């Protein structure tokens, strides 16, 4: 467990350091990357570990965000209480829909989750009484700690980093537990997984629900920070962006998820010199990354000297030696 804490510490201190030197505009982007990273750690459970191709992740982010927005603005709840309920509700929805949905595989699952995301958008844009339609919901209250609002980019970044650190550590703990291994086994070979005593359906649903929980938390943070939600923020294009972030970062690693969120959020900024040609170039660049760097940015780590494996493997190799012939 030492390495995950180390990685988390590096990420948090990098974030805190940046928060002291960057101007507000860049902090805003950094905040968006932190929120995306939280959502991505969730997607990594579903896609990276369990291999579920979800094109509906943005819908879960949206459910969290809209849930919080509706509970706080219409019912006057405190953001914390609303966050808890919105996240729980999103998780329950994911579990319910997952039961029939996750029997599908590959592109069938991709298109079904895409349909889910499109349906969410249509409802969010048209159920005007509840969601405010395309005008969205504004004046969402900020989160408060001990009576003080987490307002402004810098305090929110500190808070977001703390949440990200907590979720990263939990994710690492799940990764190295029987549940994480079960998810990976299910992606590698469902039949062999079942034949090793793994409940494949439950494992997939658990991964899906976990992904929805992280998505909903990200959505709630987004809503409290931007203080405004609209259907556009949760369209299926965002789901595809999430998948792209995960692949660019390096699929099926938590560090990759965080890197991908940061890189793809800042990319528009770095490509600003291209002006209006930016998006056209962005698509080509994604294609180039997929072709030339299929294991993503985290995959580049393989070419570096092996820094992490000795620490991680040490206890196991000692005991293996003790028991060896």
């Amino acid at each position, binding site marked *: 467990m030492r390495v995950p804490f180390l990685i988390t510490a590096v990420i948090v201190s990098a974030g805190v350091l940046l928060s002291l030197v960057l101007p507000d505009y860049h902090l805003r982007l950094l905040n968006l990357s932190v929120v995306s990273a939280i959502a991505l750690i969730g997607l990594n459970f579903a896609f990276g570990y369990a291999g579920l191709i979800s094109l509906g992740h943005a819908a879960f982010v949206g459910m969290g965000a809209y849930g919080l927005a509706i509970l706080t603005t219409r019912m006057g709840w405190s953001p914390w209480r609303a966050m808890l309920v919105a996240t729980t509700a999103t998780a329950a929805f994911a579990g319910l829909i997952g039961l029939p949905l996750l029997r599908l595989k590959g592109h069938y699952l991709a298109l079904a989750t895409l349909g889910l995301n499109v349906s969410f958008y249509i409802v969010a844009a048209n159920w005007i009484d509840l969601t405010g339609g395309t005008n969205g919901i504004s004046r969402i209250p900020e989160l408060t700690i001990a009576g003080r609002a987490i307002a402004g980019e810098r305090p929110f970044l500190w808070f977001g980093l703390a949440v990200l650190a907590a979720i990263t550590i939990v994710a690492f703990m799940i990764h190295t537990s029987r549940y994480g291994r079960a998810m990976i086994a299910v992606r590698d070979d469902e039949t062999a*997984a079942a034949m090793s005593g793994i409940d494949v359906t439950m494992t997939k649903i658990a991964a899906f629900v976990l992904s929805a929980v992280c998505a909903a938390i990200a959505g709630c943070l987004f809503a409290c920070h931007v203080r405004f939600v609209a259907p556009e923020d949760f369209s299926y294009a965002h789901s595809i962006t999430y998948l792209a972030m995960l692949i660019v970062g390096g699929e099926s690693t938590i560090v990759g998820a965080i890197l991908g969120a940061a890189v793809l959020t800042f990319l528009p900024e770095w490509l600003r010199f291209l002006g209006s040609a930016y998006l056209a170039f962005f698509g080509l660049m994604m294609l180039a990354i997929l072709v030339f760097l299929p294991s993503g940015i985290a995959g580049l780590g393989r070419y570096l000297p092996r820094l992490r494996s000795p620490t991680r493997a040490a206890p196991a190799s000692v005991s293996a030696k003790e028991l060896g012939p």
Partner: protein
Amino acid sequence: MSILQARAITKQFGGLLALSAVELTIAAGEFVAVIGPNGAGKSTLLNILTGLLMPDGGQVLFDGKDITRLATHKRVRSGLGRTFQHGRTFARLTVLENVMIGAAIRGDRTERAIRDAALAVLDQMGLAAEANESIGSLSYGRRRMVELCRALACEPRVLLLDEPAAGLNSGEVDQLVDRLTELRARQQLTIVLIEHNMGMVMRLAERIAVLNFGRKIADGPPAQVQADPAVLSAYLGHGYNRASV
């Protein structure tokens, strides 16, 4: 007392009758080999016994209980283990983690206990030195041993082996035979073996059942089955003659 029983199992694929009223009774502690030419229905039978396929007719009994409709993972948890024809391991997990998947079958185990149980199995099967290797770095034969370790870590009472010797060199086959003999000597383990390697079958099996075109054509002690004219005719031109010489 039978521990695993197939009763009148019938399975059809399209117009093809893969299994026709097949009966197979395995007593606790027995070592039974199921042999037959390619396409005789051996793997189909294993798939039905383990719940990967549903039979069109018939029943599967385990410990006297009807498990015909029971999900695969529940059968495994109640003590039915299996390896696959071409070896199926989890490529993104290490050797140890592969076996830990099996060892996690007992829900009350801590992470530490899972790891220790898995290491114990690896040690017993002579794979402890490779515990932290990635699956991809192992030879095919070693990978199949990892799969066997994973199945053993599930602590099965009945272990079904689907052609475990296929693709192994003769040294690896000998090693496999030794390990299986040791296993049987050490713990009460019932084994059902599907195999083409008749040398291995003859060295291990106490009883042999023969399938041909989805029907059981013989069932008895090796010497009796070996002399059975129906078996000989089913096997003409197959490995049986070559291996038994």
